């Protein structure tokens, strides 16, 4: 589709300013260039597409009006939050930045959900939940990142062992201005307690929809009770296969509220304080991923145990017994504190205060990541395959951080593995991107692994045919997230 022309831009800008207020619409050059490459930050690897306007809605009505005007003029529009996002912008289009819509609208401690606007960050909600006896999932992105940005990408969060997603209910605006809710709150005077009603589950259409099917203006997300007692249990393993068997055994017996498998590069580096960057990090940068130092387990499994005090004590003993069964070694909190203090600080914040560690987040900032879901036995092979492939890039992409954890009680396992090449080394990063594509093909064909992020519509077959039909019905002018994300480069 052709990019919007200059006269069209002027008309849309004028109408938007008249409709929602001039102060919410910016078209100055500096604003436009700083929004020209929002996908994963200003990454030279991604195409630069300068928008014509950036709109900052403050109410749902602002969003409705913006969409109606954009639709009338067939003007492309991309909705964004804060933090990295998995979508590209459209040259000459509108960016709808909902960061000013950041109210926590309801905390329902009877049912266990919070209703939030799209601009609410993890930090904002975790703060709001203090003292309520409830906690929310903490993402793998820094605290100021928006919850919905991650949840809508079906990101991995801290209680997903039992749930696939934190979303219960979404309020959506379509390009023609129609507003609807996807779950129980669609009915007058009904709360957001139930994702599924008498109709098909439309929230699913919007998770990993990357804004292509409608703009989200409100969401209800799961929150969880803080129990009488909780404890983080640690067990070290010398290989991933044993770690997988261990977590499967625990989750099949309903022991942990959440459990993570970390490789040694990651459990040592993700929660690093700035001062650790000069002590811990240099050793990691020089190390070989498959060879942890003597006494440092290749994998560490952290399990959040919670419930009544007596229950947690029993769970602890069970964890120790199961760890032994799979050749693991239990690490006491004291030992963890002594040997891996940054790691402990991270866990204390994540599972004690229930918020994200204010660290050097992800140790080196921009990363290149490869993410798949697979059945447990397949994932054991995938881990070996992925680590081998990452090793071939050499130490220059250290640390090679991965975490892995069961979703939906272990029916599916996630592996997210990342390296950290120099962000300005576009040649190396180009090679890595090419390799990742090849790896996705191998993982899909040989190991039956499903990618977690869109990897090109060609691989999606009839699934994409159906999605395109839905997209055409909801967004006939193809204004929403036209370029990149769910679909490729404006295709419909």
């Amino acid at each position, binding site marked *: 589709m052709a990019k919007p022309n200059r006269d069209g831009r002027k008309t849309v800008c004028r109408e938007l300013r008249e409709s929602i207020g001039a102060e919410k619409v910016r078209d100055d050059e500096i604003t436009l260039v700083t929004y020209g490459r929002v996908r*994963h930050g*200003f990454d030279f690897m991604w195409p630069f597409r300068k928008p014509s306007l950036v709109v*900052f809605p403050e109410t749902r009505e602002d969003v409705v009006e913006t969409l109606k005007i954009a639709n009338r003029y067939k003007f492309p529009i991309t909705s964004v939050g804060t933090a990295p996002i998995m979508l590209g912008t459209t040259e000459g289009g509108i960016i709808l930045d909902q960061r000013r819509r950041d109210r926590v609208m309801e905390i329902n401690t009877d049912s266990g959900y919070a209703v939030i606007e799209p601009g609410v960050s993890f*930090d904002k909600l975790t*703060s709001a939940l203090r003292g309520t006896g409830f906690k929310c999932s903490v993402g793998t992105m820094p605290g*100021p990142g928006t919850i919905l940005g991650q949840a809508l990408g079906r990101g991995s969060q801290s209680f997903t062992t039992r749930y696939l997603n934190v979303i219960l209910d979404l309020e959506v605006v379509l390009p023609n201005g129609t507003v609807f809710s996807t779950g129980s709150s669609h009915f007058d005077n009904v709360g957001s307690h139930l994702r599924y009603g008498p109709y098909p589950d439309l929230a699913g259409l919007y998770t990993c929809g990357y804004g292509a099917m409608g703009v989200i203006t409100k969401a209800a997300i799961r929150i969880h009770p803080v129990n009488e007692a909780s404890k983080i249990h640690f067990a070290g393993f010398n290989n991933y296969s044993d770690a997988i068997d261990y977590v499967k055994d625990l989750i099949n017996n309903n022991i942990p509220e959440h459990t993570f498998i970390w490789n040694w590069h990651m459990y040592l580096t993700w929660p690093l304080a*700035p001062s650790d960057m000069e002590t811990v990090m240099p050793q990691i940068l020089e190390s070989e991923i498959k060879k942890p130092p003597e006494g440092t387990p290749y994998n560490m499994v952290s399990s959040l145990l919670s419930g009544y005090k007596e229950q947690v004590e029993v769970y602890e003993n069970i964890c120790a017994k199961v760890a032994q069964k799979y050749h693991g070694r239990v690490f006491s909190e004291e030992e963890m504190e002594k040997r891996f203090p940054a790691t402990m600080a991270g866990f204390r914040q994540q599972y004690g205060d229930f918020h994200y560690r*204010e*660290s050097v*987040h992800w140790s080196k900032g921009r990363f290149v990541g490869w993410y798949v879901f697979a059945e447990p036995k397949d994932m054991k092979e995938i881990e070996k395959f992925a680590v081998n492939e990452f090793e071939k890039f050499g130490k220059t992409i250290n640390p090679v951080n991965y975490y892995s954890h069961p979703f939906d009680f272990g029916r599916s396992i996630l592996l997210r593995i990342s390296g950290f090449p120099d962000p300005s080394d576009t040649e190396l990063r180009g090679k890595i991107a090419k390799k990742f594509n090849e790896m996705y093909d191998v993982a899909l064909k040989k190991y039956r692994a499903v990618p977690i992020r869109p990897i090109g519509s060609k691989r999606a077959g009839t699934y994409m045919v159906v999605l395109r039909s839905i997209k055409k019905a909801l967004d006939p002018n193809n204004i929403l997230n036209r370029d990149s994300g769910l679909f490729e480069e404006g295709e419909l």
Partner: protein
Amino acid sequence: MKLATTLKDVQATASRCLRDARCTYGSWPENHILCPIYWHEPSFTFSGGGYLFLVLALLDKKIDFNQSTADFAFSCASCMACDSNCNLIRCHAPYVGILDIIRLLRGEAVKRGFVPEGTAKKMYDKVKKTGDYGQASSLKLPDKISSDKADTVVFAECAHTKAQKDISEAAVRLLEKIGSPVSQFAEKGCCGSTLYDFGFWEQLEPLAKANWEKMKGLKDKNFVFINPHCQEFVVKRYPEILPDYSSINNQHFSQFLADAFKSGKLKSQKADKVKVSYHDPCYLGRGLKIYDAPREVLSSLDGVELVEMQRNRENSFCCGARVLGNYVPNLSKDTARERIKEFKATGADLLITACAYCKDNFQKVMPGKDKTKVKDLIEFVDGRT
């Protein structure tokens, strides 16, 4: 940051930004907005990350340097909230913070002749004409305490602010009350802090060198600074830009006063009850991490009750004085007004600060009858001892 650093040198570290707004908010769980420009215009553009993206866009030739770039670069309040909260940028080579990169942007704009109208332009013209931006003024130390052999050297700053004269005079009276021998170091000209902050780097190096030539003979003494901007610059930046720099013992005047109260050399008078709120100046607080000494001093004064503003210590909100760009209309004054609103919410009678820039900017937006509600810590202590 070395003065030879270029935008290209910071490209890799700037592109580590994850666009997660860490640079704008204070620490959990309060998560107050601390970045003045972001508070005024909540948008990615108007955040530390936005500045980094602009640098990257300039390097990628997506935009050219022009007057707007300069106005934008000079609109940052230089409050360091970004660097206090984002650990990502400064932990990687060349180990510079977000504010350093913004200063670099200013420096590049100035090199190309783009300087914002108003104070910045006046300053630039003066520096171009005279090679200096200072009005070196010595303190009038009474004979009974003035001694060249004294271990304590008061760093007498050049006065860029309206408030500086009154503060300096109050400092001298306090030194007299304390009674210990002191000498003074009167700058050759500007120590370089202001020039560094605003990107006038060509003129900065000779000034810093000249100052250090004079200072190094006294380096075993204890330097006491009145202005936190000078102290922060000398202590943290001289080592980066002067090859022969060696560290000096240094104290802020608030620390010097706290010691004087503790040793009994300074005593509070009996005085009426007063409720005060203390504003942490950015360079004293986030810059030098001096949070306790001013509060200790206030607690040593009879009848003084300290009530904290919502944003305090490392989560303090800037006064807006160092905003010299015109990209966001009224940003400097609106920032000061926002802080005063927070002060008023405490119910305190007086707003105490410890930086002449803060005092000036708060007084600018206070209605006439309320201007006396803003005091520098030194003046306040002088009035109650």
